[in-house]
């Protein structure tokens, strides 16, 4: 077993870090306060090919391996969680089209999504349906070759600037996903502001009033909207949220190491106080553990191992939990300064809370991880029984 980055992954990490330092970090506070990201910066992301970067080169992506892809989320996420979220939602749409789109849909959208020429957003959440994706109330009624959509979607990340939405609705009671273009008749987009964290993520509410969508925009088949299309997209989204959470924890750690080295209380640097050391020790240990979980999930994803599903749930659950802990302690270590926008940890604190909610709340993760754990146990028992029988026969 070797747990280390390959030379190519190291080169990618350096590239992502330099890009972030030069182009993103200087604007992170402004994204938070103005509750938007600049169009110029989005153009830079597109030019760097960081949108759709995980897709194969054959369809226009960068062909990043899953570890490099995670590193991209970590580097950007350390500076600005709001902007990092654009990569998550856009890539979820790109993956859904890549995996489940018809030939016609892929021909129309995939190359443009892979190159970031159009921006995608994932439109599932509704006022009465968050973690319960099967509970969506938006309806899609097929009339001739057109779906007529009615309902609303809420808290749609980067919904304000997306060109196309991957939208989940019910068609004759069956979960159905459709690509909905922003200029579809009957669709209106309303900006949402005043969120607790990730305030630059340009959330929107989508209102669908007899919104007309061509039947050809169906992604997958009717009835497979959740089990195949949305879950495929959410699997990738969950992976990126794990890395984004790790990024927040790492940013908190680095901020605390700086602050505790330069600020004094009772005549001694904070770093010399044992209770400060305890919080920093926990931050170091938890961040290292989260990183290993992210690596493992990435490795399993890269090798298309079915165990990646459980491991991604675990990585997201753990990383988001420890990000919140790290951010809470970071504010504590910074004291009054930590409660001020003069220091970034108050932003990390607000952003970390969002990570415990999006792409499946921590409570949903707890239920799912336990369920998958029992499955793993059943598999292990079966394998042991088989091994025992085989050994008994050969003896």
């Amino acid at each position, binding site marked *: 077993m070797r747990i280390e980055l390959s030379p190519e992954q190291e080169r990618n990490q350096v590239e992502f870090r330099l890009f972030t330092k030069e182009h993103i970090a200087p604007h992170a506070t402004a994204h938070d306060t103005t509750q938007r990201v600049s169009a110029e910066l989005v153009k830079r992301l597109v030019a760097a090919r960081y949108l759709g970067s995980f897709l194969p080169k054959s369809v226009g992506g960068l062909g990043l391996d899953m570890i490099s892809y995670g590193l991209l989320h970590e580097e950007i996420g350390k500076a600005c969680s709001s902007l990092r979220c654009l990569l998550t939602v856009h890539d979820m749409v790109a993956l859904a089209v890549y*995996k*489940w*789109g*018809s030939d016609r849909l892929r021909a129309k959208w995939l190359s443009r999504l892979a190159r970031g020429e159009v921006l995608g957003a994932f439109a599932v959440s509704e006022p009465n349906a968050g973690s319960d*994706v*099967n509970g969506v109330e938006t309806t899609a009624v097929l009339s001739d070759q057109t779906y007529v959509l009615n309902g609303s979607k809420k808290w749609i990340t980067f919904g304000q600037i997306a060109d196309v939405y991957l939208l989940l609705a019910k068609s004759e009671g069956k979960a159905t996903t459709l690509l909905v273009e922003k200029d579809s008749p009957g669709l209106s987009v309303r900006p949402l502001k005043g969120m607790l964290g990730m305030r630059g993520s340009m959330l929107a509410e989508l209102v669908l009033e007899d919104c007309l969508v061509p039947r050809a925009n169906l*992604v*997958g*088949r009717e*009835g*497979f909207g*959740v*089990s*195949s299309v949305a*879950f*495929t997209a959410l*699997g990738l989204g969950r992976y990126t949220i794990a890395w984004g959470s790790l990024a927040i924890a790492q940013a908190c750690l680095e901020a605390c190491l700086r602050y505790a080295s330069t600020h004094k209380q009772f005549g001694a640097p904070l770093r010399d106080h044992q209770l400060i050391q305890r919080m920093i020790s926990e931050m170091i240990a938890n961040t290292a553990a989260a990183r290993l979980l992210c690596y493992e999930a990435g490795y399993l994803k890269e090798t*298309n*191992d*079915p165990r*990646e*599903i459980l491991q991604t749930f675990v990585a997201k659950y753990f990383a988001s939990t420890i990000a919140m802990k790290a951010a809470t302690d970071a504010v504590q270590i910074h004291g009054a300064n930590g409660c001020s926008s003069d220091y970034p940890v108050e932003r990390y604190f607000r952003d970390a809370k969002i990570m415990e909610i999006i792409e499946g709340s921590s409570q949903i993760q707890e239920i*799912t991880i336990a*369920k*998958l754990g029992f*499955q*793993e146990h*059943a*598999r292990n028992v*079966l394998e042991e029984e088989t091994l025992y029988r085989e050994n008994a026969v050969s003896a």
Partner: protein
Amino acid sequence: MDDTKGKIRTFFSRFFRTSELKDADDIFALGFVNSLFAMQLVTWLEKEFLFTINDEDLDIQNFNSIEAISGFIGRKTSTAVEV
């Protein structure tokens, strides 16, 4: 084919009791299928039998029993060989 059915049965046994399950029993009608199971089934089939499942394959008839899945695997792998 029997080996394929055996592999499917073993995979199923991680999720529900299979001792009474017949090859033709509809696992959807029996209430054994949820979204998580469906996602794991797709990932497992692609990894185990080395083919890609796409939108054209999304038909309940391909996945609703051991027999159906076995037939689906046979069609997909023969297509893969032809290509």
